[in-house]
């Protein structure tokens, strides 16, 4: 089996939890702490990937370029990673990120739309980057179909393909079936990754069962800092890996310190399982919708959960944040 590769997402998925408002200093301090603590890769960008800054997803405190600038130079071990969602960011954005020292990129599509990613995956390889294919909202696709999409990304050159449970809606069996389906069709030297959200409190458990069935790239974030109820909490994952005697490169106590000292103090809305974030996992809704739905609920006098449920019923996919206000207005009309 491939070595365990801990991919931190505190500074990318974690953006969602604070409306993409990390300062440049915070990014640098946290990136250095993660690097010292031995994580293998650190992802930095707007929560919705490069060029995600927008009315639809929220404008960041800085541009991706400002956040990324000067980080590659201060990392001693960890690979600087970023995220690109075709349809939002372009190859020009990818090249800019590469120039800033980004060594690894995850190219993300909805779980049935992998064929919009090959041009970005191929260009990443041409630029000499490590590339992950990121199949979002993986709970909306059956294991075999999802694996076919993974194959498309592999054929385009992806070094790794992820089961990305953006809604935090998968149960452990659902994760296992998808990872097994990937392993069945992908080449032995193609790595498999897992990206969880903690909406049903399964972030760590799902990551572990994925690992036990062949995933070696594990996404996690300090104190779970991420969209919805957050991601698989990194320090907890590392503690569990230690108890399982699984080899990795990270230091538990340093990660605990970073989680509690650097991350928890900057969480404005607590990142936890509560009625709203639980509803994301329960309804199978894109975790990044959380703060947008809470804002719409407040503005139009509605229950956040009702909005989230309706978005799930309408099969909205990642990126359709504009439909949150649309749903809210429909609900106001129906009142």
């Amino acid at each position, binding site marked *: 089996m491939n070595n365990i590769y801990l991919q931190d997402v505190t500074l990318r998925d974690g953006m969602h939890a604070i409306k993409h408002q990390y300062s440049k200093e915070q990014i640098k301090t946290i990136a250095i702490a993660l690097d010292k603590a031995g994580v293998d890769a650190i992802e930095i960008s707007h929560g919705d990937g490069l*060029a995600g*800054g*927008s*009315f*639809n997803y929220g*404008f*960041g*405190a*800085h*541009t991706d370029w400002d956040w990324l600038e000067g980080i590659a130079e201060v990392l001693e071990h960890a690979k600087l990673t970023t995220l690109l969602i*075709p*349809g*939002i960011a*372009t*190859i*020009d954005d990818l090249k800019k990120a590469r120039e800033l020292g980004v060594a690894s990129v995850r190219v993300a599509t*909805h779980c*049935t*739309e992998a*064929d*919009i990613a*090959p*041009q970005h995956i191929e260009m990443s390889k041409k630029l000499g980057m490590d590339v992950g294919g990121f199949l979002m909202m993986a709970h909306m696709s059956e294991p075999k179909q999802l694996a076919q999409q993974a194959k498309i990304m592999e054929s385009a050159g992806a070094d790794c393909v992820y089961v990305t449970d953006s809604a935090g809606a998968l149960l452990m069996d659902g994760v296992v079936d998808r990872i097994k389906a990937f392993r069945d069709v992908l080449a032995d030297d193609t790595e498999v990754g897992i990206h969880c959200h903690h909406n049903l409190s399964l972030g760590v458990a799902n990551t572990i069962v994925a690992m036990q069935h062949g995933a070696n790239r594990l996404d996690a974030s300090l104190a779970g800092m991420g969209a919805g109820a957050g991601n698989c909490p990194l320090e907890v994952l590392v503690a569990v890996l230690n108890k399982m005697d699984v080899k990795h490169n990270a230091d538990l106590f340093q990660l605990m310190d970073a989680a509690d000292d650097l991350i928890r103090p900057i969480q404005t809305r607590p990142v936890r399982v509560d009625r709203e974030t639980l509803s994301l996992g329960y309804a199978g809704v894109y975790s990044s919708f959380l703060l947008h739905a809470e804002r719409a609920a407040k503005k139009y006098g509605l229950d956040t959960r009702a909005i989230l449920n309706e978005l799930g019923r*309408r*099969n*909205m*996919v990642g*990126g*359709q944040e*504009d*439909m949150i*206000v*649309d749903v809210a*207005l*429909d609900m106001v009309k129906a009142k």
Partner: protein
Amino acid sequence: MGKTKVAIIGPGNIGTDLMIKIIRLSEYLEMSVMVGIDPASVGLARAKRLGYATTHEGIEGLIKMAEWQDIKIIFDATSAKAHHFNWGHIEQYSDKKIIDLTPAAIGPFLVPPVNYNQIQTERNVNMVTCGGQATIPIVAAVSRVAKVHYGEIIASISSKSAGPGTRANIDEFTETTAQAVEQVGGATKGKAIIILNPAEPPLVMRDTVFTLSEQADRTAIEQSIHKMVSEVQKYVPGYELHQEVQFDNIPEEEAVFIEGLGFCHGLKTTVLLKVKGAGHYLPEYAGNLDIMTSAARATAERMVTNQV
């Protein structure tokens, strides 16, 4: 005045839908030749069955045909690369105009209710993108009332209505649309996002427009948008405001940081649109394809009637 004869290059979904619109609806255009490059093309066979001349030898085949002389407008529904080749052959025939439905954009962008009058003398015009046709009229409607600093559009289309060409070149959509939001919509800075949604049954095309403008009379903006929507409805009957226009004040102390512009404040306008196709050749959910073919037809008809 007799009808003006037209040819369509590219017998795919777009070309076929356009052909059907011209046959069924146009008082001014007459379908003459369908042009392809594959003798086994289903689209060419359909055109032939309907009684129209066809060639599978591309633009070179068309130019050799007896019909060529009378054709005044050519629609190009191929690819950016093929359009460069086609225009290379057509340019010398000064009596002919070409409407480019590819992302090549050799000629200026054209969004019928916004800038037809400005470029009616052009012989090669480009129809931007489906998302551009759906949203740029709205950005322009706001621009008519207030200076638009920033225009952002989100086009959500059903997966089934996104063909392999669009999928393989998705950056062309975001880049071309963003440029046209600036050049035609009048925004200082434009941004475009496209989302594919695989839901079954397929969802009807949705488009959302956000603008950040200087403060202005909200009623005037609303009226300008309503007027524009009815202009678009003249050629795309399924185009509608799905919700009332929404306004939010962005005060200076809550200014947003926009890449390329810096900190901006003012009036945020949100327009939620729905584009249902006419269901001619393509199903109703494919409003994205319908608005392209409808805009192309409307453009050709205005070229012919010279109505502005």
